């Protein structure tokens, strides 16, 4: 359970990191908090020859609250987001999700960008990014900067749009405008802090009469990537989101999932769990006072 030998270099800035990625290609890996990569190296599931450390780069530690979105640099630690009161007020779903991410000891090192870039299908931040429709800003040694929408970023289990010479620079998380916006993150795991057997996240906006004007929701842990259900969410618009409707729409979403069987849960159980969690999430989101 020791990592294979590698060489280590701390990048001076983003350009330096990109240059090193270009020089070493697939033999180099970026490391920030290391909370996904180091365990994979210990288990020898990953054997990079070079580690390029970007954890201390100030340009990747930006937290910016703009009127229409929140920008989080890739190396912002999860604990820094967790402690940011104003960010939590404006983007409560990300705080609700972080409550389920690992433990204090891992959130103190682990970064927002790391969780997104490793894209475990059960991880909480990828699901949150998808539900909120986040935009990923990528810098590439070969192709320069580019933007990728969350729905195009997550491509499979531990597989994203990032190439060998790409660096996730920052992510923009949209802020919905207006009032009466509620959100919720629900999860079941074997132990609190473990990856989810299933998880559900949603954000819902209502008008003064309590009718839904905008909704987005998704499920994690029940497919190779987190899933978002735009068509079903659209069906909620104009309606009162009561228990019966929440259950119907959650059931419809869960039925389209194709989770695997494993030692922890059967596919049927995961689908059942997904429907229960999503029902709970939708109802909690509309019970939020505002």
């Amino acid at each position, binding site marked *: 359970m*020791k*990592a294979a030998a590698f*060489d280590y270099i701390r990048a001076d800035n983003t350009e330096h990191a990109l240059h090193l990625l270009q020089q070493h290609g697939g033999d180099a890996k970026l490391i920030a908090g290391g*909370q996904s990569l*180091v365990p994979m190296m*210990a288990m020898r599931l990953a054997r990079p020859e070079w580690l390029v450390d970007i954890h201390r780069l100030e340009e990747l530690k930006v937290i910016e609250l703009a009127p229409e979105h929140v920008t989080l640099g890739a190396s912002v630690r999860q604990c820094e987001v967790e402690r940011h009161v104003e960010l939590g007020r404006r983007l409560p779903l990300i705080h609700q999700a972080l409550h389920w991410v690992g433990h*204090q*000891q*891992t959130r103190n090192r682990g970064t927002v960008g790391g969780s997104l870039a490793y894209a475990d299908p059960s991880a909480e931040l990828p699901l949150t990014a998808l539900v909120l429709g986040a935009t990923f800003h990528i810098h590439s040694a070969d192709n320069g900067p580019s933007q990728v929408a969350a729905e195009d970023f997550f491509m499979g289990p531990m597989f994203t749009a990032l190439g060998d010479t790409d660096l996730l620079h920052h992510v923009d998380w949209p802020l919905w405008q207006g009032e009466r916006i509620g959100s919720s993150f629900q999860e079941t795991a074997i132990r609190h802090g473990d990856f989810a057997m299933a998880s559900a996240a949603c954000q819902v906006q209502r008008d003064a009469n309590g009718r839904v004007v905008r909704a987005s929701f998704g499920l994690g842990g029940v497919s190779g990537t987190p899933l978002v259900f735009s068509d079903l969410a659209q069906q909620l618009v104009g309606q009162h989101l009561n228990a019966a409707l929440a259950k119907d729409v959650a059931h419809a979403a869960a039925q389209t999932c194709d989770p695997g069987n494993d030692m922890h849960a059967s596919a049927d159980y995961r689908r059942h769990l997904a429907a229960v969690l999503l029902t709970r999430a939708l109802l909690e989101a509309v019970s939020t006072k505002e």
Partner: protein
Amino acid sequence: MIMPSRKTVHIRVNGVMQKRDVEPRTTLVDFLRDELALTGTHVGCEHGVCGACSVLLDDEPVRSCCMFAVQADGMNVTTVEGLAPERGCLSKIQDAFCEKHALQCGYCTPGMLIASHALIAHNPHPSEAEVREAISGNLCRCTGYQQIVDAVLHATTSEEPSHE
């Protein structure tokens, strides 16, 4: 096959600056135990699940098996050996662990102590739920956790002023 060059690191451990040349793949916990002979920090699962290797890194609890010593260059580390106010003494939490029989085999204890100290550093009078949350990243296979929770509450609710 890569032949990595050794890197020089400066890490302040329990208040003492330590300079060593390390292989990049040396984890922080192996650095503490093998280079500095600070064997109070335990190696458990080595992939970030059990919490036995917890240390304070710049006063925040982290898993020392999930980072390499080179990543801690220039930072401050506190291990279980650094929790007591002076040699031969116990911290109030450590004393409460004895008082409330919060350990049996002792394997998880350094991690539990680190997690508890980190908690009371910013929350001197935690609720039971907050104690349970703070140690939720640390596995114990002997005590059933109850005595550990009792010990932290004992140390933080008694009358005497804390020395931490």
